[in-house]
């Protein structure tokens, strides 16, 4: 674990350094056009806030017909620059009412429903109980269509008799993705490395294959933000006479992007 963490720290430092170096290139370019996306205010006016949040005051009002440049987007706010070189933050709902040079509305994702074509990724973290011990789990999902998603899991279990690391790949089926409270079924397989805790004689670590089926539900707390809980039943295919079985309960949070 220590080696992995050291590597992670190094990686993050290197990335941060690299990003800081190239951050002047942060200005959002429409890569194909080679410049920022430009839109025209089509509503009566567009308000510029001093920060990307609902509480930040409006310091500038851009009238209809004026051109603005979109520098980048952070959550539901757009950093824009107007014709007089003033920069500020514009709300998503107001940006939706701006027009591109072609006359079309600025295409932004639908507010009411998750757009599976443009936001197929899902990620999150869960914690809970695995066979009597604690479990921490990280998941990344990729939606193949509205109902079916491929899911990858990395978990660490922390028990009294042993710890283990689990890597899984599986399928998640959500029969009703349009519901705010959406139940799902899961099926998958993977490997587990069990690290028994040393008492007097430390048994060696063992690596086994395992498979699971699960049932759970996610709840869309706000747009893009998910609460999730699930139950899974694992079968560990041991090299012994009998397979081992473990039950897992966990809950956590996630988001899609």
């Amino acid at each position: 674990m220590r080696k992995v963490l050291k590597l992670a720290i190094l990686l993050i430092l290197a990335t941060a350094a690299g990003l800081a170096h190239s951050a002047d290139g942060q200005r959002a370019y429409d890569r194909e056009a080679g410049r920022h996306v430009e839109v025209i205010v089509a509503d009566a006016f567009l308000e510029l806030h001093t920060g990307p949040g609902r509480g930040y005051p409006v310091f500038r009002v851009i009238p209809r017909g004026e051109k603005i440049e979109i520098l980048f987007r952070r959550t539901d706010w757009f950093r824009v620059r107007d014709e007089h070189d003033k920069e500020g933050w514009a709300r998503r709902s107001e940006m939706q009412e701006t027009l591109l040079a072609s006359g079309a509305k600025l295409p932004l994702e639908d507010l009411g429903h998750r757009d599976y074509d443009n936001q197929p990724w899902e990620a999150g973290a869960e914690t809970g109980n695995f066979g009597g011990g604690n479990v921490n789990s990280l998941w990344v999902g990729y939606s193949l269509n509205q109902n079916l998603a491929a899911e990858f899991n990395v978990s660490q279990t922390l028990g009294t008799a042993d710890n283990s690391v689990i890597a899984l790949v599986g399928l998640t089926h959500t029969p009703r993705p349009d519901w705010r409270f959406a139940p799902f079924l899961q099926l998958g397989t993977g490997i587990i490395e069990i690290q028994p805790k040393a008492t007097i004689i430390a048994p060696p670590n063992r690596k086994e294959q395992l498979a699971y089926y699960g049932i759970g539900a996610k709840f869309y707390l706000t747009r893009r933000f998910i609460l999730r809980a699930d139950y899974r039943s694992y079968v560990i295919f041991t090299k012994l006479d009998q397979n081992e079985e473990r039950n897992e309960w966990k809950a956590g949070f996630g988001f899609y992007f």
Partner: protein
Amino acid sequence: MESRIRVLLLIACAVALGGCSWWPFHKKPAQEPVPVEATTADGAAPAVVEPTVVRRKIKTPSIKNSNFEIGPYMGTYSAQDFQVNPVVGARLAYHITEDFFAEALVGQTHTGRTSYERLSGGANLLTDSQRILTYYNLAFGYDLFPGEVFIGRRAFNSALYVEGGFGATHFAGDDRFTVMMGAGYRLLLNNWLAAHVDVRDHIFDLSLFGSTQTSHNLETTLGVTVYF
């Protein structure tokens, strides 16, 4: 026998999963095609007109998203009974909405000696490698008080946030389940650079001294992050 039932159940699940995905939950029932009588006045078949309409391609402009934050931090980690020591770490955060963010943390410190070890002279409870404390944490945060601060005549965006999470701490030769609670302050220096001050409490059970006790380990750090 037991495992055979499992295998059967797994196969049943597999079939159900695959089958359900094809189930047209969202599709309206297909309407019966209405037969169209295609005849002209003189009874001859009409000329088929093939319009040559060139569909205009609508290009979706790519607007850069800047929701991730990454960067190092350093400070002090007070390992209960094992002195206060320097800590280094790194964080990766993703801003989900203007209020909520998810965060992953990793950090490492070299803990000191307990009072007992120092007073008794030679008795060491842990080896040198067991004293290295490493943790990871998956947390979820809320920008409690977003706002602006004024330094001279310039205004900077800032936020006071609270966060909570879970993870594991590797210490004294074992990985221990850890709950973290913390609060921090973020000051955005420009569009892409932020400075952070954080205070976190790492809570885990330790049974080094005979009975199991819950240890609170306070960490105070200063850090910078880059948005991308």
